[in-house]
């Protein structure tokens, strides 16, 4: 049995790849297919993956604010709150702070090193 962390990742991969919202049943089938095809995440026991496990994973992801449930339909259909690229952009923003224009950053820092240092730097960068 795959760990919940691995399953969360697999479920998010499916939701990010898919165009439309999916039910837990659909996701379970896709996960089983994936593991049969690649013999990867859930190992040989992918077929035994219970829908309740998928629902557990989905509710954990929902709590983390990564997945939302379409209300009003039954069975519930789930979709990713924002795209993989958006989440990555958020992480990068958090890690790098507010330095949006990185070429300007280099320009400014080249401006503030001395002329001979800037020449050395250009030479180093220009080598390949």
């Amino acid at each position, binding site marked *: 049995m795959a760990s919940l962390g691995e399953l969360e990742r697999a479920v998010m991969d499916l939701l990010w790849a898919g165009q439309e919202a999916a039910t837990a049943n659909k996701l379970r089938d896709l996960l089983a297919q994936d593991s049969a095809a690649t013999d990867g995440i859930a190992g040989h026991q992918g077929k035994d993956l219970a829908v309740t496990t998928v629902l557990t994973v989905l509710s954990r992801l929902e709590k983390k604010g990564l997945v939302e449930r379409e209300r009003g339909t039954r069975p519930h259909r789930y979709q990713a709150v924002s795209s993989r690229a958006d989440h*990555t952009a958020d992480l990068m923003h958090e*890690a790098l702070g*507010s330095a949006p224009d990185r070429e300007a950053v280099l*320009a400014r820092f*080249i401006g503030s090193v001395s002329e001979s240092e800037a020449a050395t730097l250009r030479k180093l960068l220009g080598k390949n």
Partner: protein
Amino acid sequence: MFWTSYFLAVLALVLAWPVPVLLSRAEWPSRAPFMAMVLWQAIALAGGLSMIGAMLVYGLEPIGDNLIAGLRSLAGMVLHNEPTTALGFWHLFALSAAALLSAHLVFTLLLTYVKIERQRRRHRELLALLASPSDDGPGTVVINHDSPVAYCLPGGARSVTVLSDGLMAALEPAELRAVLIHENAHLSQRHDLLLWAFAAWRQALPWFPTTRLAQVAVNSLIEMLADDVALRTESKGTLIKAIAIVASGSARPVEHFAPPGTSGQDASPENSSLSGTGGADSPRTTASRVSRLLSPKPPLPAAQRALVLAASAMLLAVPTGLLIVPGLLG
């Protein structure tokens, strides 16, 4: 003990403004970043101690010959409802201010910690879904992003260094190694603790020049310390190139350089829970790092290092001594 409170007040004032301004303009910290780091910590601690100490000593002056005797009388007033008539309005004001400031500092430190931890936990959760393990060893993951980015996410045993696809593509193996060593130095030297303490210090007293200058200085000193670790095994050229590529956001050389007049804007140092290479730096930090590598100056001589260390020790010993020793002797 009256003069003690004045002396401490003067010390607090000197440490809040002229000393940090001078230190932030000094050239030697880049020649001895570790010593400079010790001195900044001593300035912050001694500054806080003398601020609170000055108010405490002034407030307790009528009811005790020294701090310890004064605190004992104060405890009597609070716990046993003894008369407080000995204390005038300004004494009570100073005591309340000392208590409030102490509580404010401790509370801000804790609050900052909680905020940072929450942000890191969220960041780690997302990384678990978005990043894949890298071949560069345990604790290193790769995230799908085009700009060259490297940063570390501290968290004890769960510490992780994050590299982007763009970085892996832009850097030669030796340069990548330099970046990894740099990031690991941040983690193993626990720079996150320094960033946390100085972020909280600034958050608590944002209007003091010392807290802003200290945070900016500490941000750049930790980068220099990590660079020095990378220089032990990688060549200077490799490291400079890696820094420049990360700072430029692309592997190709930039054609148009801005005139020097546009320099000098420092980026916001607010985000401090993660420490990155390049991107998280202000341009000034990157410039001083590169400058330091391109035109190296000799390390500070041992005698001057010892002097800095002695000054740091004095900064801590003098206010502590003034506050405690009279009580122990009396």
